[in-house]
């Protein structure tokens, strides 16, 4: 049902040309499409029924994200609904949930998760951004990098250090910071794969203590779980994009003629496309495995391990399928004119997001 609904949406509103026009617009995503996301109920998918959501199953997110991946959807679904919304759902009190989640699901509230810092690489416990209590406020200072949707989100969900040293597992808290607050300095940019993001400096930003989400100093576990769900989401997105790359490459090889015949008739190239197909299937399988484990009752470490397995294996498939799709297309594959190059850039971006292949391979080994 979800799959069907996204496919219809893509058919009507999200051709390659539609997407190019959206990328060229000032905010870099379509507000009309976002309103449709809300209307079609997609923004409720990440949330449990008791929070007013569709159920919050990872397997549903997987289906949705795979379709997004095929069409290279750039609307900030993951930053708003999975990262920002995910933190509120996991740690927020009743008041925060009712204030934020309904607005989010109705498409009225944009969020962003600001969790990474220079020098921290992919370690979510590496938090130097400090929040010091002063009366009824926290005063926040520090800098976050690669804040997806950070340029336009009204609400920033930020990991801050309220105690301990830079890499301590305890002492990490989450604050909801109004992006219009004095001292929030945003350097906005587009990512290489067409998404809007920002580097954000917090210069003595005063945040009401009521904006603390969850218990002070105890946010790391929930943060890691939320980022794991986002990781599963982009892995599923990559599965969709890789399928599109394979399908486009096979089609191209049937129509592109060199040496008097379609290049798809060359056995050397056929075998490479067969290898691409195998990679796509293994990627799909391992993402399904991880989604099913996230929806099960196993303990948090096992879930984390499953997600790292998926991200690691999908990363390997991304390298292989992405590069081969470009190579088999030849020069046209590295131009902006064809969707193949854009899919290649998106999957490459995903490879790095939330930890690259080596990071997740090592994390799998350690869990």
């Amino acid at each position: 049902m979800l799959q069907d609904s996204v496919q219809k949406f893509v058919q009507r509103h999200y051709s390659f040309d539609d997407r190019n026009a959206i990328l060229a617009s000032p905010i870099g995503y379509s507000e009309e499409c976002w309103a449709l996301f809300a209307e079609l109920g997609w923004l409720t998918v990440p949330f449990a029924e008791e929070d007013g959501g569709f159920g919050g199953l990872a397997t549903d997110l997987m289906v949705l994200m795979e379709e997004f991946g095929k069409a290279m959807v750039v609307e900030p679904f993951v930053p708003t609904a999975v990262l920002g919304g995910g933190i509120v759902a996991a740690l927020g009190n009743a008041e925060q949930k009712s204030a934020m989640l309904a607005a989010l699901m109705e498409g009225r509230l944009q969020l962003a998760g600001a969790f990474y810092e220079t020098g921290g690489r992919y370690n979510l416990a590496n938090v130097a951004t400090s929040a010091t209590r002063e009366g009824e406020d926290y005063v926040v200072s520090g800098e976050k990098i690669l804040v997806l949707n950070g340029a336009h989100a009204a609400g920033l969900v930020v990991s801050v250090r309220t105690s301990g040293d830079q890499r301590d597992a305890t002492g990490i808290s989450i604050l909801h910071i109004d992006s219009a607050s004095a001292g929030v300095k945003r350097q906005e940019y587009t990512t290489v794969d067409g998404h809007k993001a920002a580097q954000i400096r917090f210069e003595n930003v005063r945040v009401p203590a009521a904006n603390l989400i969850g218990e002070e100093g105890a946010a790391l576990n929930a943060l890691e779980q939320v980022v794991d769900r986002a990781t599963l989401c982009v892995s599923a997105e990559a599965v969709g994009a890789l399928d599109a790359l394979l399908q486009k490459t096979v089609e191209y090889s049937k129509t592109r003629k060199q040496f008097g015949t379609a290049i798809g008739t060359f056995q050397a190239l056929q075998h490479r496309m067969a290898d691409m197909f195998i990679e796509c299937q293994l990627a799909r399988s391992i993402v399904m495995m991880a989604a099913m484990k996230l929806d099960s009752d196993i303990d948090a470490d096992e879930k984390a391990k499953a997600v790292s397995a998926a991200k690691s294996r999908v990363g390997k498939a991304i390298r292989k399928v992405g590069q081969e799709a470009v190579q088999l297309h030849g020069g046209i594959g590295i131009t902006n004119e064809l969707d193949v190059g854009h899919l290649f850039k998106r999957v490459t971006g995903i490879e790095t997001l939330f930890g690259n292949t080596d990071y997740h391979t090592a994390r799998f080994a350690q869990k």
Partner: protein
Amino acid sequence: MNAEFTPQELQFQEDVRQFLEAEFPKDIRAKVDNRIRLEKDDYVRWQKLLYQKGWAAPNWPEEHGGTGWSAVQKYIFAEEMARVGAPEPVAFGMKMVAPVIYTYGNEEQKKRFLPDILASNVWWCQGYSEPNSGSDLASLKTSAVRDGDHYVVNGTKTWNTLGQYADWIFCLVRTDNSVKKQEGISFLLIDMKTPGIKVNPIYLIDGTPEVNEVYFEDVRVPVENLIGEENQGWTYAKVLLTHERTNIAGVPRSKVRLEKLRSLAANTADGNGGNVGDDPIFQKKIAEAEIQVLALEYTELRALAAVSVGKAPGPESSILKVVGTEVAQFIDELYMELAGLQSLPFVPDQFSADFAGVEIGENGAAATALNYFNNRKASIYGGSNEIQKNIICKAVLGL
């Protein structure tokens, strides 16, 4: 071939170092170090300095302005150039059309074209590929029809690198439709200012208009611009492609990039209190690349030794193209992996000479994914790596 340099060779190395230290413009070096794209003026200015020293074209015969260096000297020169980031001369004039002109051109053509190429007075570009003739280059359709003292050229060339800067283009054109496709091709030099030529940029996925489509509509080209004999162009082009491949291994540049990568990794925090350079997984990857470059380097030296005893560069040069481009692309991947999340911002303005804002990402991190994207071209151009393997199969293995 010796693994150690002789005292004379060491002295030569010292001379090259001193020259580069004194003459390679500091502003161009700063651009290279900061990953700022070089402009036409940067290339031309540097090439003219090399020309004044007499070192513009080490590979040319001495009678036309070559240096008369041994293979080892050429190797030392390339290595020292790469060490300081000095750009190699733009290939199209110096390395691609010039060998064809001095090998197959007539005396008049040699006098007319070679001095300006050597002195970098004229910028050349290449007109080979066409929209429907890529790997199957010999199927090209751009036609040249004789009309009195002229050829009239019609057709479209594509993947034309930096043609927006070019004064002249060398083209493969079809002069006979009635014979086997390889036998009806001629090699024609065309002034880019001739009426009827239009250059349209093609944007690559890193956002740069590095290549063009070039349209020819009833372009009149004097017959004296034909190289060699009519319908022999394919033979000439094959020789040119072999030259292109011997220059494509890029060993010195890969060595320098790996050295820089190592030192960057040693200074890149891993997020756990150490640095990425200490990570055994990353160390293994760098080591594998270094070993591959070593194997490539000695393969190239063996090929050079064969050339120096009088053999023409043969189909073995396909190895250099395949391995040279693949290892360069692997190094691109490592730079991107090292940059991590900061490989993702698309901030190309940061890498322009007049950028005055606050830079995002350290040590050029934000250029790494773009380099990775852009350099996927390396396994496609110059005869794709698939074509190189076809050459090995046919010409070396006899399959």
